[in-house]
């Protein structure tokens, strides 16, 4: 589904990631962890075509990213739901329109989604915030809205970067539950986080593999987590 083969990524002078080989099989659940600045966000961006590898190959849905046109990348974004670390919205549109935005830009309209949209808003607990503008939301509400936006197209893959970064323990458990539910529905899930307690909590609910970035490389973390 998403496959990195001997991938290296450098910016300016320094090499941030080297010789990374990762394969996200359909329906798998992965965590990506490592210290701040290790390159988690960068690796995630490589996974949805926002960055191109300096060397090696990134294959998204069997296609090498380097061969993809700009429009192909746009189509891949519709199959990969992304929750950014610094969640951004269209601040002039209410939350419900922001959540429906992937439908809008692909030519399907929120009306068509109708009940689905309402159900999704309820699922992330934002029903009564639907008409609010994004700047009025709390950090946790923003992250839930971002998650709803990431899954509204029913994508095959969900990539979440620190989805519990701004929320308390209870809310992080709720968000995790949403992601686990998505995985049970057959979605491939990858969560980047440095929150080890979140990983432990997840391991109780789902079979998750933990990838750790250290010294520019990715290793499969052992059972010590």
């Amino acid at each position, binding site marked *: 589904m998403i496959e990195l083969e001997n991938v290296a990524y450098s910016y300016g002078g320094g090499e941030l990631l080297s010789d990374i080989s990762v394969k996200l099989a359909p329906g798998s659940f992965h965590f990506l962890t490592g210290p701040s600045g290790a390159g988690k966000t960068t690796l995630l961006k490589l996974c949805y075509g*926002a960055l191109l590898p300096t060397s090696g190959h990134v294959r998204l849905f069997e296609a090498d990213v380097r061969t993809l046109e*700009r*429009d192909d990348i*746009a*189509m*891949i*974004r*519709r199959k990969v739901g*992304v929750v*950014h670390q610094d969640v*951004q*919205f*269209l*601040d*002039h*549109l209410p939350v419900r*329109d922001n959540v429906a*935005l*992937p439908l*809008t*830009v*692909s030519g399907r*309209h*929120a009306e068509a989604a109708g009940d689905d949209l309402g159900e999704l808003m309820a699922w992330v607990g934002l029903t009564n915030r639907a008409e609010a503008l994004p700047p009025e939301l709390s950090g946790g509400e923003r992250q839930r809205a971002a998650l709803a*936006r990431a899954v509204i*197209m029913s994508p095959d893959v969900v990539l979440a970067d620190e989805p519990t970064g701004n929320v308390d323990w209870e809310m992080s458990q709720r968000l995790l539950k949403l992601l686990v539910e998505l995985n049970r529905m057959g979605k491939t899930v990858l969560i980047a986080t440095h929150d080890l307690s979140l990983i432990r909590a997840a391991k109780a609910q789902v079979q998750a593999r933990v990838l750790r970035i250290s010294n520019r490389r990715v290793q499969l973390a052992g059972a010590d987590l």
Partner: protein
Amino acid sequence: MRFDLQTLRAMLAGDRHADRVVPPTGFTAQLTVFASGAMAFLAVFALALSLASGRLAEAWGDELARTATIRIVAPEDQRAIQTTAALEVLSTTPGIASARALTDAEQQALLAPWFGQDLPLDTLPVPRLIEIIAADQGFDATGLRLRLAAEVPGAILDDHVRWREPLVSAANRLRLLGWTAALLILGAVAAMVTLAANAALAANAQVVAVLRLVGATDRYIAQAFVRRFTLRAFAGSAAGVVIGLIAVWFMPSGGDTPSFLTGIGFQGTGWLVPLLLPFISALVALLATAYAAGRALRTLT
């Protein structure tokens, strides 16, 4: 951004949702509308100037080319004989449709503005005038002059060419300048819209990033901007054209005589030409924004 019929149709049909993804930008919007309105207003005058000078050039070229005058300057007793002789010569000159001597009354009327009504024509050595109207193909002025010199010593042919030509070429030049001004105005509209579109794209970098993230194609993003600027340019120019036409309509008119200053304006179907302006500026804005957006989106990641 690729541009084709499908894009155009989608744009004209409009997409309420697509329109809303780019936040309304009050100030640049107003500036774009105002600037395209002002440009259209100026373009109306440039067009009025062009069309009027065109008409003038044609009128002068046409009417004056086909009329000429012969003056018979001769002593009192010779005048009638020489006039008859000149008419004789003219009747055998190819390319002349008609020729006739002006009557005393007509000559009096011609001179009245300068010398008053009661000028005693018969006591003054006023030359007799013969009015010539040429046939369509025209006549050979040099040949006629030679014949007149030989047969009618007092006849002087004035075919108006001397003073007509510079006027006609000035009018033609003016027409060219008018069209050039109109084209430059369109160019300015294109430049202005490109700048405004670039500013709008830069100001909305976050919007573009969000749209990218959720899978919007460049075409979709560009279209939201293109549509907006096209409609603004259209609305602005439509207003500018209406105001310009009203201003031209109320320009003082000189009646039927094609004179220069009073002749600036539109006649007949000429009034329809400025109505094309809003469509042309909309098209120019569309191409300019599509170009600007295409370029900006390729560099913006």
